[in-house]
């Protein structure tokens, strides 16, 4: 399954073009790896010790997209923001047994980050912020298992919807999600995602 990435806001057109080029060229990576088809993997809740690998995978993705300078969040931030008394996000990890570890020795090979949100129309909801599987483990059902888990967690918490964003040029991901039964709310309802940050946020605070 193709991964989907929601990036932080960019400012320049130049960076967006770089994004598009690298992303389209990676579509060849997601063919199934025969020796991994029968691979065992497990999905579990992330804990404090996983923050090192989560930070690694966040950075892997950003480096692959040549925008690693955009990542400001550190392992320490993840520990504080995800595992204190009032967490801002929750995580699930995909892990493989020792015999399938990567050549660098990693057994944690995928993750999803999510948090609970709220719809003023229908109530409890879940937002899937990130879904990532390391390239050599794609096509083996890990991504599907991660999103299945997020769906289970959503229902267990009484949520009525699961929301996330996909970039408009990521057609394989869009097609996959649409085939699983979701709606493109931007297309059907014209909803645009907006953000106020930096100087604009400071200015709003002073109006």
């Amino acid at each position, binding site marked *: 399954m193709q991964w989907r990435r*929601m*990036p*932080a*806001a*960019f400012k320049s057109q130049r960076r967006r073009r770089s994004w598009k080029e690298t992303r389209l060229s990676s579509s060849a990576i997601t063919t199934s790896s025969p020796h991994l088809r029968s691979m065992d993997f497990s999905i579990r809740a992330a804990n404090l010790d996983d923050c090192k690998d*989560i930070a690694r995978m*966040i950075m892997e993705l950003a480096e692959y997209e040549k925008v690693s300078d*955009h990542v*400001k*969040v550190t392992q320490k931030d993840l520990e504080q*923001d995800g595992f204190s008394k009032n967490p*801002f*996000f929750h995580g699930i990890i995909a892990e493989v047994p020792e015999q399938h570890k990567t050549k660098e020795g990693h057994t944690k090979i995928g993750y999803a*980050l999510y948090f609970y*949100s*709220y*719809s*003023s*129309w*229908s*109530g*409890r909801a879940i937002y899937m*912020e990130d879904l990532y599987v390391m390239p050599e483990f794609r096509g083996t*059902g890990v991504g599907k298992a991660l*999103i*299945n888990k997020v*769906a289970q967690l*959503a*229902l267990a918490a009484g*949520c009525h*919807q*699961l*929301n*996330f*964003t*996909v*970039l*408009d040029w990521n057609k394989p991901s*869009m097609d996959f999600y649409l085939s*699983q039964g*979701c*709606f*493109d*709310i*931007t*297309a059907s*309802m014209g*909803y*645009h*995602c*907006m*953000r*106020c*940050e930096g100087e*604009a*946020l*400071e200015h*709003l*605070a002073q*109006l």
Partner: protein
Amino acid sequence: MEYKLRKAEPRDVPDILRLVKELAKYEEMEHQVTLTEKELLEDGFGDTPFYHCIITEIQGEKSSEDRKVVGFAMYYFTYDPWVGKQLYLEEFYVMDEYRGLGIGSGILRNLSNLAMKTRCTGMMFVVAENNEPSVQFYKRRGAEDLSQEEGWRLFRFDKDSLVKMAAPSEE
């Protein structure tokens, strides 16, 4: 006219639902509101709130009149793994007859301050592209349209699709 901005309390739940329905009506989506007062109470004022709310109330002209809730904002905290905490503005509404008095700007100022105090790097929200007045209101204040500029598309699985997806994989 004096108005007061404060944190919502459990007793405000009927007014919050009233304003949610009024806004939905303005967007011609009133039939889509399935939320109840019971859910709003449990989800906003229980041990782990799913949302927070601030409301604007005005004092009636006669001192004996009850205060009236004329505007509100519903928000919660989200997370961007690249830049950290965000404040997500889920709903923001001022009753028609009380617009143009600075109530909306006051709510946004309050929330922006809160975002900065809680070390959020941005405030995020969604606007319908055909809601020209709102789109211009936010763009004038420096908001970026990430759907237009970066190609973000919002996707949703509803309850039925969630149930299907949560079933064990057949692979």
